[in-house]
């Protein structure tokens, strides 16, 4: 392996003024030239919609693509808990620096300082922008915005709209996007899937997309292409992601020269509804915000089969509060997930499968109930009245989540504790990008969850929405100037250019190949097998032996897929099974790279836990001497990847063993 050093192009100078200075010196494109520049945005989630709307407002010609039937349905819609911003509205000592610090520490010192500081800096504008659009954030009686706490922080900086924050933010960005569609500055292509990028003379110049309704392949030119295509958690088959979430766009870009950053950094979210059977198609998150008001516990006795409400207080182990008194139930996700796994593996798990822990609201319902009773002047209210009053408060904060839980499990979380278990949720890895959000292919950018930036080895709650909107509203529209200012003389390239013709031909052949196999196994069969390997060997705990085995096993599934998959129907019609097959084929290649990356990183950090590298009390043991770098993988050929490194330098934060005790 050669170890070429990558340049992230972070501007020189003091941390606090890097961005402001850079922003005011980055080359601009004048308005009349903007009208001739075409930009392709793939993805209409928070990152894509916000970027597309802003670029169109600035005067560029924009085309947007998404695979759902409407841009409003991008997976960002499902985000529940909230969005961070260093507003310090609660006067609890928050600041840009503190958000920056929390994010670097939360990411276990594996994120780039310059990017993270910029993220913290622009976070406050996001809230202003969203409120101006009419996003109905939660408010206090005085009319001011309300905040809650999320994991890995000791301040209240999370803005929210009940348990539907992602929905409200996305509908805000979507309305800005549709406004531009109405004005004719954005052309929207819904039910379209990008199936390749087109490079000409070393620069990205367009994409090949498939109209999912007619099956027709289309060529689209752009002076620049933005991939805002979300995360790849579905490589595990079961995850909290939407069914269509996929790696295809990023993977095609990877195969055309974009390096893939830290593919093995996966976030396993501690509070999800446990698996109930083989039929399960996806897992449902119970927002981290619930950890504000819920206490996590297991019985002190192993294999305790009593009903949770029959287990007395002194026979419960509030293990997070016990192990991490300073942060308690609000430790970061990687820590909380591992702690739950540890208890269940040791035989303290609950529920039929024994692979669950309790998330209990009774304590806080009573606390709220008492406050309410006092507010209403009730003297000596009985326990039942207190509980009822408390229930009302909890219902207002999390009603939709409680309803969702009840709908799925058939149990009422107001009466008995929720059963929860960790599930795959978010991917910190993604396309490697520099400070401008450009990949290693000139003119090809990656925004939102699709890129690797900002979260290091573990993302803090409520920071993905922040990053997606920061990238789209406030970062890329500036940084893209440094590239496009040199492109003003580039005329639109005809899509008859041989690069387009060839790319389309390759896409067509691949679709035909999939349809021609006519094998015996369904697409889901392969996806489930891959998912199980990934979960067992590249999930919450990883080791050398398991990863080596997984790589071989995945390679053999790849071969089996290409000789035995059965996909019916045609390429020139609406064919969801064919779409799925293409995505699973890409997941099979990505899964291998994730294992390769996990095997290469001989340390534990954040969500990447190698059992060989842990402290005496079971915490992740980093190796800063040898692994303080970003792994950026270059695709060489089938099953061949070359490692490049971006060294991480900490000039403003003292790198330390992460402690939440």
């Amino acid at each position, binding site marked *: 392996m050669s170890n070429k050093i990558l340049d992230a192009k972070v501007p020189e100078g003091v941390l606090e003024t890097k961005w402001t200075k850079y922003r005011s010196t980055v080359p601009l494109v004048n308005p009349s030239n903007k009208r001739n520049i075409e930009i392709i945005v793939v993805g209409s989630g928070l990152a894509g919609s916000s970027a597309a709307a802003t670029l169109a407002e600035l005067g560029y010609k924009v085309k947007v693509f998404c695979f759902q039937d409407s841009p409003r349905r991008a997976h960002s819609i499902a985000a529940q808990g909230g969005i961070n911003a260093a507003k310090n509205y609660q006067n609890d000592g928050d600041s840009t620096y503190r958000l920056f610090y929390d994010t670097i520490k939360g990411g276990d010192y594996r994120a780039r300082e310059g990017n993270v500081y910029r993220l913290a800096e622009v976070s406050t504008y996001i809230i202003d922008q969203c409120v*101006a659009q009419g996003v*109905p954030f939660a408010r206090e009686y*005085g009319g001011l915005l309300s905040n809650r706490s999320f994991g890995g922080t000791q301040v209240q900086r999370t803005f929210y709209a009940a348990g539907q924050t992602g929905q409200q933010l996305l509908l805000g960005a979507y*309305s800005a996007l549709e*406004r531009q569609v109405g004005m004719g500055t954005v052309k929207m292509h819904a039910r379209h899937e990008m199936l390749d990028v087109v490079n000409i003379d070393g620069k990205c110049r367009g994409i090949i997309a498939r109209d999912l309704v007619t099956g027709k392949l289309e060529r689209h030119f752009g002076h620049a292409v933005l991939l805002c295509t979300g995360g790849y958690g579905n490589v595990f088959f079961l995850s909290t992601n*939407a069914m269509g979430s996929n790696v295809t766009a990023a993977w095609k870009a990877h195969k055309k020269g974009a390096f893939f950053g830290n593919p093995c950094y996966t976030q396993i979210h501690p509070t999800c509804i446990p698996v*109930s059977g083989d039929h399960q198609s996806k897992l449902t998150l119970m927002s981290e915000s619930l950890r504000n008001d819920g206490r996590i516990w297991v019985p002190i006795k192993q294999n305790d089969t009593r009903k949770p409400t029959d287990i007395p207080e002194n026979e419960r182990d509030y293990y997070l509060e016990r192990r991490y008194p300073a942060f308690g139930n609000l430790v970061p996700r990687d820590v909380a997930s591992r702690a739950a796994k540890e208890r269940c593996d040791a035989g303290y798990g609950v529920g039929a499968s024994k692979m669950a822990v309790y998330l209990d609201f009774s304590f806080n319902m009573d606390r709220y109930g008492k406050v309410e009773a006092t507010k209403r002047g009730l003297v000596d209210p009985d326990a039942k009245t207190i509980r009822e009053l408390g229930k009302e408060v909890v219902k207002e904060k999390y009603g939709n989540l409680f309803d969702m839980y009840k709908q799925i499990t*058939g149990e009422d979380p107001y009466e008995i504790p929720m059963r929860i278990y960790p599930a795959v949720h978010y991917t910190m890895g993604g396309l490697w990008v520099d400070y401008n959000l450009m990949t290693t292919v000139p003119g090809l950018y990656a925004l939102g969850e699709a890129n690797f930036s900002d979260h290091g080895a573990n993302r803090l709650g409520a920071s993905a929405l922040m990053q997606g909107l920061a990238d789209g509203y406030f970062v890329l529209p500036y940084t893209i100037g440094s590239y496009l200012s040199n492109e003003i003389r580039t005329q639109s390239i005809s899509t008859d250019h041989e690069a387009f013709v060839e790319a389309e031909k390759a896409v067509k052949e691949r679709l035909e190949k999939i349809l021609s196999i006519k094998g015996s196994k369904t697409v889901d069969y392969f996806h489930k097998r891959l998912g199980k390997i990934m979960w067992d060997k590249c999930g919450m705990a990883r080791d050398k032996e398991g990863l080596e085995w997984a790589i071989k096993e995945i390679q053999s599934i790849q071969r089996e897929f290409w000789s035995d998959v059965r996909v019916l*129907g045609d390429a020139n019609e609406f064919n969801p099974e064919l779409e799925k097959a293409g995505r699973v084929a890409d997941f099979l290649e990505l899964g291998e790279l994730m294992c390769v990356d996990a095997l290469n990183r001989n340390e534990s950090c954040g969500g990447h836990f190698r059992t060989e590298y842990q402290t005496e009390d079971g915490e992740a043991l980093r190796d800063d001497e040898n692994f303080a770098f970003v792994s950026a993988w270059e695709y060489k050929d089938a099953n061949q990847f070359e490692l490049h490194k971006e060294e991480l330098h900490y000039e403003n934060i003292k790198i330390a063993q992460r402690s939440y005790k």
Partner: protein
Amino acid sequence: MSEGTMSLTLKVWRQKNSTSKGEFKTYPVSGISSDMSFLEMFDVLNEELITKGEESIAFDHDCREGICGMCSMYINGRPHGPKNAITTCQLHMRSFKDGDTITVEPWRASAFPIVKDLAVNRSAFDRIIASGGYVSVNTGNAKDANDILIPKEDADEAFSAAACIGCGACVAACKNASAMLFVSAKVSQLALLPQGKVESQKRVENMVAQMDVEGFGACTNTGACSAECPKGISLEHIARLNREYFSAKLTSNNV
């Protein structure tokens, strides 16, 4: 919790594309657990069909947790099925009994042409939003968020309107295929907030005009929309839209 498995008979609308003629086809399914979701039951059926060499049934879905608004099945004569205030993907098989026959159709409305089987084209909703369902504020124009004080009641009411997921069940439920509930939810959300007030007159006129262009029917206040809406969007929003609309028309330049 699991209570054994069920066998059911499904009558499903099959239609190759928007121009072909469709028909009901009958499929028996068995081994269905009560913990499965309705869409997971379709997954099981589709796997069986593929194994038998028959094409799977196309249906729209994505988040499978009631928020993206993509799923859209008309089940036993009701959009999103027999239970109130949930989407198709949130419907669980414990709501059915062993031996039941279940009829499944796509949304039926001329403004929502069928794409294939159970999937329809709802892009008309996007065009209605593009005609005015926004606040005209460019990125970077905003002042500090807490400079705008909004009474909690108004914020909550705006939020309850903004909860609409754009699924189209209201249209499918309405005998006139009217989109009034969907449109009113957006008009109402923005009319309740100071940020949206400025443009409220133009907004309501444009959105109602676009709704007519798209071929949705008239609202005759039957209320089936709200009763079937998975997010419980209230008829009060239609009343608010009407007030906005009439006051706009009184002063409008565009009559």
